[in-house]
């Protein structure tokens, strides 16, 4: 369990670093908003919401890890939660099936978008190729690793 505790400490450092980076990005964007191109209100709202949600998630995650470092019982619970084999299997299955559905969805949308807009067509085509490449590369990696 000491090894896991050390891992949690390291993880905490990364999480705090990520949180500080997020705050810096937010501040830089906020202070330079006059100089940056102004997107539509919807996009500004989305950016604000996404950054705030990410910040909140990081705070929650930092709190969970901090609690585990301070309390051995919570540490064991967290270890079990993160290493539970059924949960791992569910994650693997949802990831594998999910990515296939995404590729299929992107490919269908790419074909349909081709009739309406070149920009949307190429964006979706790029996304389809990217997701397919990620899947293919991971497949090769794990075939060689396992």
């Amino acid at each position, binding site marked *: 369990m000491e090894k896991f505790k050390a891992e949690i400490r390291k993880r905490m450092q990364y999480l705090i670093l990520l949180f500080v980076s997020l705050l810096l990005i937010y501040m830089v964007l906020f202070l330079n908003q006059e100089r940056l191109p102004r997107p539509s209100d919807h996009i500004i709202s989305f950016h604000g919401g996404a950054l705030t949600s990410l910040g909140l998630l990081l705070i929650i995650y930092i709190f969970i890890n901090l609690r585990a470092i301070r309390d051995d019982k919570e540490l064991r619970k967290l*270890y*079990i*939660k993160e290493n*539970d*084999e*059924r*949960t791992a299997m569910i994650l693997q299955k949802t990831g594998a099936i999910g990515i296939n559905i995404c590729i299929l969805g992107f490919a269908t949308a790419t074909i349909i978008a081709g009739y309406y807009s070149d920009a949307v067509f190429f964006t979706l085509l790029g996304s389809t190729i990217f997701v397919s490449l990620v899947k293919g590369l991971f497949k090769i990696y794990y075939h060689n690793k396992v």
Partner: protein
Amino acid sequence: MKTRVRELREKNKITQEELALAVGVTRQTIISIEGGRYTASLVLAYKIARYFGMTIEEVFDFSEVEEV
């Protein structure tokens, strides 16, 4: 896969939570194993069997496993 986990757990008056903590999995995993919806890995099967002081074959029923 059929197992004797529930039977052994009830016989020894152990809760699902206690068994889960002892073998290092979540309670949901024990529930799924007892319900026959999830087949435990070899390591987990060994841990559960050892917890009850039995062999894997005595706890897990392999009679329905198909031979290829």
